[in-house]
């Protein structure tokens, strides 16, 4: 058990010059003892590299790693007391399931009786008890992956368990079960778990804290609801949620924004004039009457029935800046012909195709992003866990 602190940068090239040469840009990151973390991001964003650096399979090209007060930068995985589960099942073909599970214990010289007891506990947790004496080579892919998971969890004194997309090969039904199992194990054993995935559902259901990564950096780290409500970066808004956040380029002056948003968004007079982007989640985008203040004229282009809700696509009419179309918005906001998506709950009134509607972009949940795609103003703090 340990608190893991990273202060690193990593490049697979010998002399990195620009940002693109780095697999991981310089970063500081702390994983608290006993937390359930997820590293979420698209392929190639550096999440597996980060995991391998924590476990010691990869040595960072710069910086250091600390487990509590102990520096482990130069230590091999064997000396770090860490477990890792890989994307594809790794089993030792010639051993039985029980021998496979006991392998990490045997290598550390733990006595036979304790090892056997521990294996029995883990096998029970993962529903492998019936197969303990079978040869591991003959099992199906998801059984093998369960063995890999078991080998990761079998050591009681392990500092942290790292998962590298461990459920990729598992079929959906079992995936759900195993995810719950891991969550249960986390609650029971209070191990530090770090889980790498590119599947947002997996990350959001598994972790207390999700680190969203993109091109070698952590763009935001927070609870699932924080990521949903206040994406700190356009990438997070786009990546989290299904579909992701709507973005509309907005050209306006800081004062106009403050005026439009009224009390809803904290006015920031220091906002530089220039490209500004408004972001709103499909869940919070609202249909309204065209004459309502702030309404943006749009035309309904798609309606999809998703079962539990409707997904509506609305095309915003191009509006030139300063042109008095609609009410209010046209005075300060120039909007391109963007397609916005909104979710309507089952009970709500669903518009017709090609119907002209108004869209209310401004709500307590509206976020604003600056030219570097970073959050400038958004729902003010107090985001409760819901």
């Amino acid at each position, binding site marked *: 058990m340990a608190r893991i602190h990273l202060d690193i940068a990593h490049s697979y090239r010998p002399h990195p010059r620009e940002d693109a040469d780095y697999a991981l840009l310089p970063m500081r990151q702390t994983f608290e003892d006993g937390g359930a973390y997820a590293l979420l991001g698209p392929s190639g964003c550096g999440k597996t590299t980060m995991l391998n650096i924590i476990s*010691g399979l990869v040595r960072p090209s710069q910086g250091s790693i600390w487990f509590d007060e102990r520096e482990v930068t130069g230590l091999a995985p*064997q000396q770090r007391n*860490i477990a890792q589960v890989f994307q594809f099942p*790794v089993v030792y073909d010639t051993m039985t399931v029980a021998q496979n599970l006991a*392998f*990490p214990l045997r*290598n550390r010289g733990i006595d036979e009786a304790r090892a056997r007891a521990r294996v029995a506990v883990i096998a029970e947790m993962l529903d492998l008890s019936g197969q303990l004496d079978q040869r591991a*080579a003959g099992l199906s892919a998801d059984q093998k992956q369960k063995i890999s998971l078991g080998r990761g969890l079998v050591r009681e004194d392990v500092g942290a368990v790292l998962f590298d997309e461990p459920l990729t090969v598992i079929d959906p039904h079992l995936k759900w079960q195993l995810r719950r199992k891991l969550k249960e194990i986390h609650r029971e054993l209070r191990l530090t778990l770090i889980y790498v995935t590119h599947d947002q559902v997996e990350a959001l259901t598994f972790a207390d804290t999700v680190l969203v990564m993109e091109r070698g950096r952590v763009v935001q780290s927070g609870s699932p609801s924080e990521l949903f409500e206040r994406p700190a970066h356009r990438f997070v808004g786009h990546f989290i949620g299904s579909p992701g956040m709507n973005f509309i380029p907005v050209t306006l002056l800081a004062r106009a924004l403050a005026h439009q948003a009224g009390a809803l968004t904290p006015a920031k007079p220091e906002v530089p004039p220039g490209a500004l982007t408004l972001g709103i989640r499909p869940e919070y985008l609202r249909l309204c009457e065209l004459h309502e203040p702030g309404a943006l004229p749009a035309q309904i282009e798609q309606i999809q029935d998703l079962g539990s809700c409707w997904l509506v696509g609305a095309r915003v009419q191009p509006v030139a800046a300063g042109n008095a179309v609609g009410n209010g918005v046209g005075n300060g906001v120039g909007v391109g012909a963007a397609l916005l998506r909104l979710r309507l709950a089952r009970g709500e009134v669903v518009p017709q195709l090609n119907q002209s509607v108004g869209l209310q972009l401004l709500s307590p949940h509206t976020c604003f992003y600056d030219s570097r795609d970073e959050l400038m103003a958004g729902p003010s703090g107090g985001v409760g866990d819901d």
Partner: protein
Amino acid sequence: MIKPVNQKAWWLVLPVILCVAFSAILPLMTVVNYSVQDIISPERRVFVGTEWFVAVLRDEELHGAMLRQFGYSLAVLVVEVPLGILLALAMPVDGWRASATLVLVALSLLIPWNVVGTIWQIFGRSDIGLLGAVLEALGTEYSYTGNPTHAWLTVLAMDVWHWTPLVALLCYAGLRAIPEAFYQAARIDGASRLAVFRYIQLPKLRGVLMIAVLLRFMDSFMIYTEPFVLTGGGPGNATTFLSQYLTQKAVGQFDLGPAAAFSLIYFLIILLFCFVLYNWMQRVGTSGTSAAGEQGAR
């Protein structure tokens, strides 16, 4: 939908049947034909039934050659397979060193059999050969032409020198095919170098080792050229292996009948051994698993 029975597709197999007939079946049948006849002259031949087979199986000389052959093939496997694995483990994994090593290791495989024999014939001479002269200088009375043990060891060393690289290359390819995750998992699990070899590398090499063992067994069982060039089967008959014996019979003494009978026996022995070895190696490391498990392991 029930398809009508149509046997016309058999015609498509005809070219293959013709090829195989001319290249394998007819020559083999000729041998069978010889093995049951006593050919006195091209015009006069007598049907003798299984007489030659009985005679050949009772031949003391043949028993000797057979024993020497098995001893030799066994020695070849015992030396070359572990040596090849060690060599493969020691070869560099990437960079220019890997390419350079591959070329160096593969070099001996490019040399024709009779040239190998000639090289070793000179190499082993005590007057001008490096090996012979060095052994002589060390006080060993080394002579592959006079001492049967020396002759046998030299033929073995020659084969090891010539063919261990094949085993090494096969194992090298097998080792490269093991996914990195296995090594990573082993490091995480705290496995020692020996445990990595025992539980990851060796089981994963099973397939290529099977091929290596079969190839080396068959090849060494049919060895002819090298001892022929080096020792001519001597001294005495210390290095007269089965094919040497066969050639002496068929070409030297022109005993076509016994030679043909023996060829068939020889053929059956190789077939039988390969079959047994193959089945045994298939089972090693997967005993106790079902047929489904066997497929899962692939």
